[in-house]
């Protein structure tokens, strides 16, 4: 492989009927920050390439350039209006491998170009699947739910990848993802197989899907210039048999937005799940609050009555990167340790009170008040005190 075979970062833009989803500009912002640094470090001129598929979407180019894209590849076609995984996967792969597109991005490397160096997708109901199928077609690796990215030269000594020898992998994308416990950060690398005794294989693009909200967009610059490439996709007639019959927005099963207070609970309920959840239910009722949960609770880790399980231990109540982002006036975290995944979902709350038996619990750093003790002891006392002060605090 030569350095010229794999170039640029391609960012797959998401929109609904031409309205950009926030994650699109967040991914572009992070790509811009990484590549400003990349081009200085490696003395190169590789590009941030925004890729957008749809119909009547040409007006998006300006916004994407203002937000950091050097190049925008637009695939505008009536059959791309509906997001159908099979069709979009094929079109993305076509434009990733297209020599004419490569020549328009960077004429000097058009002949050498094989595939993008990196690709970013969103970790949502569109990008999660699209990234998987695109990488299955492009035959490369993917990390999911990434919230930190670093590009560096790494010395690797791996039984399979390098046959136990030390080798330098240049321009490697370190993709960080938080594991399901919320406490471990795993770094995923997508590396070529350079083991002569096994198969030698090149894996590009190094790609990931990125958690919405993990990165910030850059400040838009109306003076930025960019290159717009109009790509003519080839659509398989057979794929047009897949049809979207209807599409409608629905209210979420759990409404957080119209409540001024949200009470969230986590693994701290474990001593007596049924009893503790009923207690939290009464507490929330008194405060006219909605009830949320931390991610582990949605996995039915505790046995409780069917009514409690079906009402509370459900994904729709999860607050955090795997669920909803909330911003109530008051958030009360009961028995929640404060894993990063949860904190990112509640950190915009105006005031935060946490109830936890561990004074060193990470939730402390995201709280205005940390009340130390067992929830079983504290909540009844709070209820009693609220009832005394109720004329002051009741807010409809």
């Amino acid at each position, binding site marked *: 492989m030569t350095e010229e075979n794999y170039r640029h970062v391609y960012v797959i833009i998401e929109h609904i009927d031409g309205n950009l*989803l926030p994650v699109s500009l967040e991914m572009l912002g992070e790509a811009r920050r990484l590549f400003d640094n990349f081009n200085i470090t490696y003395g190169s001129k590789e590009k941030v390439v925004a890729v957008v598929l749809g119909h009547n979407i040409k007006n998006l180019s300006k916004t994407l350039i203002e937000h950091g894209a050097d190049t925008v590849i637009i695939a505008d076609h009536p059959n791309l209006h509906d997001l159908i*995984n099979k069709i979009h*996967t094929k079109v993305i792969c076509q434009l990733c491998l297209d020599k004419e597109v490569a020549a328009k991005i960077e004429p000097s490397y058009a002949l050498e170009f094989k595939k993008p160096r990196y690709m970013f997708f969103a970790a*949502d*109901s*569109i990008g*999660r699947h699209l990234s*998987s*199928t695109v*990488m*299955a077609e492009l035959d490369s*690796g*993917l990390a*999911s739910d990434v919230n930190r990215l670093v590009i560096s030269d*790494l010395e690797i000594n791996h039984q*399979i990848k390098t046959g136990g020898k030390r080798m330098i992998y240049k321009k490697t994308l*370190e993709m960080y993802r938080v*594991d*399901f416990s919320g*406490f*471990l*950060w*795993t*770094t995923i*690398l997508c590396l070529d197989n350079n083991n002569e005794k096994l198969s030698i*294989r090149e894996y590009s693009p190094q790609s990931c899907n990125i958690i919405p*909200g993990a990165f910030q967009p850059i400040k838009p610059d109306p003076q930025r210039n960019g290159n717009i490439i109009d790509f003519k996709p080839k659509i398989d007639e057979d794929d047009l048999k*897949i*049809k979207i*019959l209807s*599409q*409608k*927005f629905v209210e*979420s099963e759990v409404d957080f937005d119209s409540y*001024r207070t949200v009470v969230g609970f986590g693994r701290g309920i*474990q001593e007596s799940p049924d009893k503790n959840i009923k207690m939290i239910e009464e507490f929330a009722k008194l405060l006219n609050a909605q009830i949320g949960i931390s991610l*582990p609770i949605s996995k*039915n880790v*505790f046995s409780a009555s069917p009514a409690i399980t079906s009402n509370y231990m459900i994904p729709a109540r999860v607050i955090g990167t795997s669920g909803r*982002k909330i911003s109530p*006036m*008051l958030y009360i975290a009961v028995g929640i340790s404060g*894993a990063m995944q949860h*904190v990112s979902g509640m950190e915009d709350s*105006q*005031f935060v009170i946490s*109830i936890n038996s561990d004074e060193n619990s990470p939730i402390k*750093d*995201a709280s*205005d*008040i*940390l*009340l130390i*003790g067992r929830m079983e002891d*504290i909540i009844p006392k*709070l209820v009693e*005190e*609220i009832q005394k*002060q109720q004329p002051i605090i009741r*807010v409809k």
Partner: protein
Amino acid sequence: MAPLNIAVVVKFEPDLTEGNISYNSDGTLNRNQTKNTLGPHSKIAAQAAFYAKVKYGARISIGTMSGHAATNALQLAMQTSDADVLQLYSDPKFAGADTIGTAEVLKNGIGKMEGKMDIVFSGHRATDGETGQVGPQIAWKLGFTFLGNVISYDVNLEKRTIIAKRLLNLRGVPEIIQEVEAPLPVFIAIDPSYKYYFDTVSLRLAAEKYKREAFERAQNYKDYLQSFNCQELGADETLVGLVGSPTIVYDVQRVPKGKATRNAAVLDGSNPEHIRQTVKAIGEALSAMVIK
């Protein structure tokens, strides 16, 4: 021949339920002490297949890539779906596979099942890996249309099409319910909120009959179990396990403590004055009197 041929791919995962899960002192999962079982999302995929068994008389084959201990997950999946055949794909060569290396094995496994598949089901994502990548990657390798986040479905046996409802969750807009029609075969990653519903008495009675049959069959699940190693599957050794995996886990570290975004007042829950102080703060917060 059954009117509909269905495969379900399932995963043997750490059992996160109370009493079975074990944590290290730092809050991370103790994998050695934690038992394994049929993953909860895999169970929902098996339930989705059961719907087709009752409604369309489907034939169901279930496959998993794992060690031999996973046979109890296959047994549970059989009991849930009333499956006709169980398949275990087990070989040291499969160890260390990332999602694409896993998808390659499962694609080959589905190829070993009897007849051409009309629908393949998988769970939404594994509880431990949580990538959600394996399902769509198997679909792509099989050349099947992929439908993710499916909350309900029905098949038109004459037209050989499926109509499925999908629940899309995109940050920044309300949830979307999409109804999609596609010709068979399809690969469905079933949404966690999926629940089957039988709308006629005859279907409900049939469901009871199939549940009894499933329970009895699962007692003798070994009679229905087939095992395959890499060679028997006919899988390309360079495409499976660590050798066939583009990605590696380079490092695992504790998530560094983030910068404190708030400066918490630490209060004692057994101190009545501190309880009063907390309730006063609740009142102020809800009156928007707190100036941050």
